[in-house]
C-alpha cells in the first residue's frame, strides 16, 4: 500500500502540463538536538547506536554518543545484559548472546539524566524464496521492478514484515508487508528501483547501474514496530514515538533477518507488460 500511496500522490503529477521545480531559500527554526536511538538485533548479532539530530542547514552528523548506560533484558527469561560500545561507538550484546525466537526484550538507555525504554519481540524467521527483476513499461520509459517473495512463518497468525533493499551495501529503499499480500503461497512485495535509461543528474537513490549488487532483507516484526514503520512511510510527518520515558527518536528491533542478493543486469531482465 506504500506504493499505492505513492501512485495516488503522483497521479496528480500525471495531470500537470507546465509543472516546474524551484529550490527554496528556507530559514529553519533552531531547536535543541534530540537523541536518536537505533537498535537492531538479529540472530546474527546487531547493535544499538545513539546519535543526535542535526540542524537542517548543517551536514548530517552521525557521530555516535558513547557515554550512555545501555541494558537489554530478556523479559521471557528475566536476564539482563549490559551493552558496551565498540570502537565504532555501536553498543553490542556480550559475545555469543543473540535474541531468541519467541522472547520479548526490553532496552533501557540512560544518558545525561534522561531515560528511554522500549520493548520488542523476536518472531519466527522467514526466508526469501523469490528475488527477481522484471521490466515494467511506462509511457516513454521502462522501470525495473524487483519482487521479493517469502513464506509466512506462522500461517494463521497475522504477521508483519519490514523489507529493506540495499544497493552495494548502502540502504536504497524499504517497504512494509503483511500476510494479506500473499499470492501463490508467498508474501510478495514489489519495488520500482530504476529507469532503464540512464539519467545525467541522477543521485545515488535515483537509479541502479549495471553490475550493482542489490540485497534484500526481510524482518518479521511485531505490530508495534509495524505501526512505527507505517508512520515512517508518511512523508512530511513525524514518526510515532517508539520509546517511552523522555523524548527521543528511533526504535528498538529484535527480529530474525532473511537476506539474499541479486546483480542488476538490464540485459537479462524480461519485460512483464
Amino acid at each position: 500500500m506504500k506504493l499505492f500511496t505513492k501512485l495516488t500522490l503522483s497521479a496528480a503529477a500525471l495531470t500537470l502540463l507546465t509543472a516546474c521545480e524551484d529550490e527554496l531559500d528556507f530559514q529553519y527554526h533552531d531547536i535543541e538536538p534530540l537523541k536518536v536511538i537505533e537498535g537492531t538485533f538479529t540472530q546474527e548479532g546487531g547493535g544499538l547506536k545513539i546519535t543526535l539530530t542535526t540542524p537542517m542547514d548543517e551536514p548530517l552528523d552521525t557521530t555516535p554518543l558513547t557515554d550512555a548506560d545501555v541494558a537489554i533484558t530478556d523479559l521471557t527469561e528475566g536476564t539482563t545484559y549490559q551493552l558496551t560500545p565498540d570502537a565504532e561507538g555501536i553498543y553490542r550484546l556480550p559475545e555469543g548472546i543473540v535474541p531468541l525466537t519467541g522472547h520479548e526484550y526490553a532496552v533501557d538507555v540512560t544518558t545525561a539524566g534522561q531515560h528511554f525504554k522500549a520493548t520488542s519481540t523476536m518472531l519466527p524467521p522467514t526466508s526469501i524464496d523469490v528475488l527477481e527483476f522484471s521490466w515494467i513499461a511506462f509511457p516513454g520509459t521502462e522501470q525495473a521492478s524487483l519482487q521479493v517473495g517469502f513464506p509466512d512463518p506462522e500461517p494463521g497468525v497475522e504477521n508483519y514484515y519490514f523489507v529493506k533493499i540495499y544497493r552495494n551495501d548502502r540502504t536504497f529503499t524499504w517497504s512494509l508487508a503483511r500476510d494479506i499480500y500473499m499470492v501463490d503461497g508467498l508474501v510478495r512485495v514489489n519495488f520500482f528501483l530504476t529507469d532503464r535509461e540512464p539519467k545525467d543528474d541522477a543521485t545515488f537513490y535515483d537509479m541502479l547501474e549495471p553490475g550493482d549488487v542489490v540485497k534484500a532483507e526481510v524482518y518479521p516484526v511485531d505490530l508495534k514496530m509495524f505501526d512505527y514503520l507505517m508512520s515512517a512511510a508518511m512523508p512530511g510527518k513525524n514518526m510515532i514515538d517508539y520509546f517511552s520515558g523522555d523524548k527521543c527518536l528511533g526504535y528498538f528491533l529484535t527480529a530474525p533477518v532473511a537476506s539474499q542478493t541479486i546483480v542488476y543486469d538490464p540485459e537479462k531482465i524480461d519485460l512483464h507488460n
Partner: protein
Amino acid sequence: MRFSIVLAALALTMSISGQALAMSKEHPDTTLRLNEVTVTATSPMTRLDNLQAGAEKLDPEILTGTPAMLGEHDIIKSMQLLPGVNSEGEGSGGIQVRGGTSAQNLIIFDGAPLYNPTHVMGLFSTFNEDAVAAVTLFKGPAPAQYGGASSAVVDVMHRPGNPDHFRGTASIGLLSAKAAVEGPIGSRLTYAVAARRSYADLFLKLLPDYKSTIMHFYDVSGKMRWHVNSRNFIDLTLYRAEDQLGLKNLTHMDWSNSFGALNWHSRLTDRLTLTSNITGTIYSTSMWMDVNGVFQEAQGHIKAVQMKEALTASLSDAFTLDAGLSTRLLDVKSAEWHIGENTESELRRGWETGLWASVEGKLNEHFGLVAGMRLSLMCGLGGNPIYNFAPDGTMIDAGTPPKSHITKAYLLPEPRLSLTYRLAANNVLRAGLSMTSQNLHALRMTDSSLPFDRYALTSNLVKPERCTQVSLGYVQMFREGEWEISAETYYKDLHNVYDYCDGATMFSDVRLENIILGGRGRSTGLELLLRKNTGRFTGWIAYTLSLTQNRIPGINDDRWYVAANDRRNDLAIVGMFDITDRWRISGSWTFNSGLPLSAPDVKYDWNGLTHYYYTHRNGYRAPSAHRLDISATYRKVNPRYSYEWSFGFYNLYNRHNPYIIFFEDDDTKPSGTKAVQYSLFGIVPSVSFTINF
C-alpha cells in the same frame, strides 16, 4: 450587462425560500405557466432585500465571465474570487469557505448531494456551465432546510430547458469539447441536455510510447420538465461524471458521481406550495495496479437515497413559513482492499433525518428576519461489524448487529437565525447565527481533497461534526446600485473535527475508526468587498483576513495549531470590460498568503537514510501565491446563430506558485539537504471556440 434565465418559482423556493414567493407576487400573471418567471437583470439594489445573512445568489454569466484556466469556465472555481471563499491550493477546483475545508461543504444539484465533484484530481469541478441555470452560495447561516454541512452550502440548479424553441451550443477548447441542447417537446415538456469530454487521450493513442495511457473525463446531464397542469410540474434530472486515469494492464484509477433526482412542484393553493424530492446519489472510487502478478485494488463508495418534503406557506403579505422533513439512507464504504487473494473492507450505514421549520419576513420597514430550527437525527445502523475501544485504547470487536439495529443515535437541534436592519434605502446591517452538523467526515491524506480520500460516517464511535457560526455584516450601495461596498465578520467554532492519528495513513488500517481522532476547530475572519455592478466596466475587489486553527489530541502536543487551510490574507481584483459590442476583456489578480507548512527543524540518520523531525504542526509558511489571469472574447451575433472566440492566459507573468514543498538530500549542497518547491502551472495560454444556435 443583461441576462435572462427561465426559472421555476417553486424551484427557487428550494434555493432561497421566500424570495420565490416575493417574485411570484411581483409577477402574478406567471401562474398561468405555473410560476415560471423570467428574471431579467434585477437591480443590484434588490440584493439589499435579501433577508438571509451570508447568502449570495450568483449569476452564472458573471462567474463564467472571469478568466479561466485552459479555457475551462468553472462555476465553482470562479467562486474562489469572492470574499471569504478561496481555493485549497494552486490549481485546485475545490472551494474553502470561511475556514472550512471543501469536504465540509454541501454541494447539491437539483436537490441531490454530490461528493467531491471534481475532474482531473481536483483541478475542475464537474459542473458544465452550459447545464447550470442558477447557483446560490450560503457562506453564513444556511436556511433550515439545508442540513449536512458544517461549512458552506452550494445549491446548483440545472437548466430546465427552453419552453419556446430549440437552442444549442457547442464549444471546443484545449482540454475538452462540449455541447448542450434544449427546447420544448410538445406543449407540456421541455428538456435540456449538456455533455463534456476531454480528448487528450485520443491524441495520446497516436503516440507509440503513450498508447497504453488512459486519461479522460466526461460529464453528462439532462433534465426534463413536465408541466402536468397549471398547478403542478415535475422535473427529472439525471447526471453522471467520471474520470479515468491509468496505464493499460498496469494501473488504473477512476472516480465517478452519478445521481437521479425527481422533483415534483405543486401549488396546492395560492398560499401553499409543496415540493417533493427523491434523489439517489452514487459516488464511487476505484484504483488498482497489477505488478508482476501481484494485484492490489482499493475501492470506496458513498451511496445516498433521500426523500424530502418541503412546504412553503405564505402566512401573510409579510411572512412566509417553510417547513419540511427529509430522510436519507447513507451507505459508506470507507475502503475495500483486494490484495492478492485477500479482501478487507469496512462499510458503515446510517439513517439521517431532518425536520425543520423556518419563518421569514419583515417586522417593519427596518427589521427583517429568517428564524428557523432544524432537528437532525442521525442513527448509525447495523449490518456490518462494529467496534468499541477497551480501556487501554485497543479496538475490540463488538459484533455484527442486524441491519435494522440502531448502533447509536444523535439528536441535534440546529437553530438558524438571520437578522437584517435596513438603516436607509441604500444600506443594510445583517447578523447571523447558525448551528449545523455533518455526519460524513472526509479524512484527507493531503491538505487538499482528492478523489480517494476515505470517508467516515457518524457511528457508535464517530460523533457528528458540529459547527456554530456567528456573523455580522454591512452592505451599502451607491448610485442606485452601480457601486457596492460590504464588510462582514464571522466566528466559527467546530467540534468533532476528525483527522488521522499521528503516524497513520489511509492504508494503515481498514478499520478507519481505529486510526482517526476527533478534535476542535475555530475560525474567524473579516471580509471586505468593493464591487462595481453595472456599466461597461464591472468587477470587484475582495479581501479577506482570517485565522483558522485546530486542536486535535495527539497532534502538536495537544495545543492549538494553525490549520492547513488557514488563509491569512486573501485578495482578488477582478475586472470585466466590454470594449465594443463584440469584444470583451477580463482579468483577475489574486494574492494569497503562503499556506501553513510543516517543515522540519532537524534531520537525522535512520536506517541509513535521512529523515526529518517536525517540531510544530504547520509551524512554517510556504511562499505567498499570486498570479494574473486575463482573457479576451470576441462574439459575433448572426440572425440564426452566434459564435465566440476566447483567448486567455492563466498566470500571465509566469509566477511559480507553491503546490508542494518537500525536503530532500542533495550531495552538492554543503548541508546535504535542500528545500524544493514544486509548482503546477507556469503561464498557460488557452483558446476556445463556441457556437450558439
